C-alpha cells in the first residue's frame, strides 16, 4: 500500500492519530495513549483497479475483465483498506472493572483499489 504524502491524489493511506488525553479519555482508557485511526483516500481510475495491497495477479485479472467487458460498463473501483489489525485496549468499564480486549480490524495498515 502507499502512504499519502503532500498532494497525492491516487488511492493511499492517510495517517490520523487520536490522542486520548486531547479528547479527555485518558482517565478511563489506561492503555494505549491513543488510537491510530488511519483511513483510505484518493482516486482509483480503472487502469489501476486492483493495484498492490492485493495480489498482482488479481490486478491483471481485473484489467482483463475490463478489456473483455467494455471498459465503460465496468463499475467504479474504490480505495479501500486491504490490511488491518486489532486495537488492544485496557480500560475501566462502567463498574470500574478493568477490562482488556482486542477490537479486531480497527487500524488500517494498507489501502488499495478494489
Amino acid at each position, binding site marked *: 500500500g502507499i502512504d499519502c504524502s503532500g498532494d497525492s491524489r491516487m488511492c493511499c493511506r492517510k495517517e490520523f492519530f487520536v490522542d486520548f488525553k486531547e479528547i479527555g479519555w485518558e482517565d478511563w482508557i489506561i492503555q494505549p495513549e491513543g488510537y491510530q485511526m488511519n483511513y483510505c483516500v484518493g482516486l482509483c481510475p480503472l487502469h489501476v483497479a486492483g493495484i498492490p495491497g492485493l495480489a498482482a495477479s488479481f490486478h491483471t485479472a481485473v484489467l482483463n475483465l475490463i478489456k473483455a467487458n467494455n471498459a465503460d460498463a465496468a463499475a467504479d473501483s474504490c480505495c479501500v483498506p486491504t490490511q488491518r489489525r486489532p486495537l488492544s485496549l485496557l480500560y475501566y468499564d462502567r463498574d470500574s472493572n478493568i477490562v482488556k480486549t*482486542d477490537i479486531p480490524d480497527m487500524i488500517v495498515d494498507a489501502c488499495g483499489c478494489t
Partner: protein
Amino acid sequence: ALKGAPCPACGLTALAPAAQRDILIALAKQSILSKLRLPDRPNITQPTSRGALLTALRGMRAQRVDTAVSPGMPRGGSVRPGMGVQEYEMLSFAESGSSTSRSTRLHFRFTQELSGSTEILQATLYLFWADPGPGTHPVTVRLLQPDPTGPNVTVASETRLEVQRAGWTTLDVGQAVQSLFSQGSQRLTVELAVAEDWRSPRLAGHSDSHWPFVAAQARARTPHRVRRR
C-alpha cells in the same frame, strides 16, 4: 482535494482541516464506544490504585501462563478475531460488604455490557491473607448469588480453606460467574466466615495492593460480521 476545490472522487467541496479533524475524532469515539458496546464513555468514580492494578495484572499473566502450561484448565480454543467473537480479560476489584466478628462479605460487579451472550472461559478469585498468626485457621468461602425469585441470596458454592501463612489464595469461581451471567445478574457476593476465636479474616486494606479481586476471561458473541471480499 485542495481547499475549496470539489473532491474529484465524490464532488463535495473539501472540508476545512479543523472541520475534518472534528469529524474524524467524532468518528473515532463512536467507533470505539460501539465496538466496546458502551452507550457513552464510562465515568470513573473510584480508579484502582496503581499498586493493586499492577499486582492484579501480574496475577492475570501468571494465570494465563498456568493455563497455557496445564491444558486441563477450561480454555476456549483460540478464535480468530473478526469472526463475530470478541475475547475479554477482566479484573473486578472487591467492594466491601457487611461484616461481623466472624464473617466478611465482598461484592464483585461485572459489567452490564458483557452479560447475556457471554461465555466465561475462566474466573479466579484472589484473596490475600495478612499475618494470620500461628497455627492453621479454617475459613469457609461461600459464593452467594441473588435469588431470582426474591430479595434473598442463595449459596452457589461453599469451599473450606486452611490458612496457615500470609499470602495469596486463589479459588476457581468460573462456574458461579457463568451462572450469574446466564441469569443476567452482574453481582457476585463472596462471604468469608471463620470458626473459633480467630478474629475476622485479616484481608489487606482497600488502598493496599493486596485487595481481593476476580480475574476473568470471557468471550462475547458480537453481531455476526459480514466480511465483503
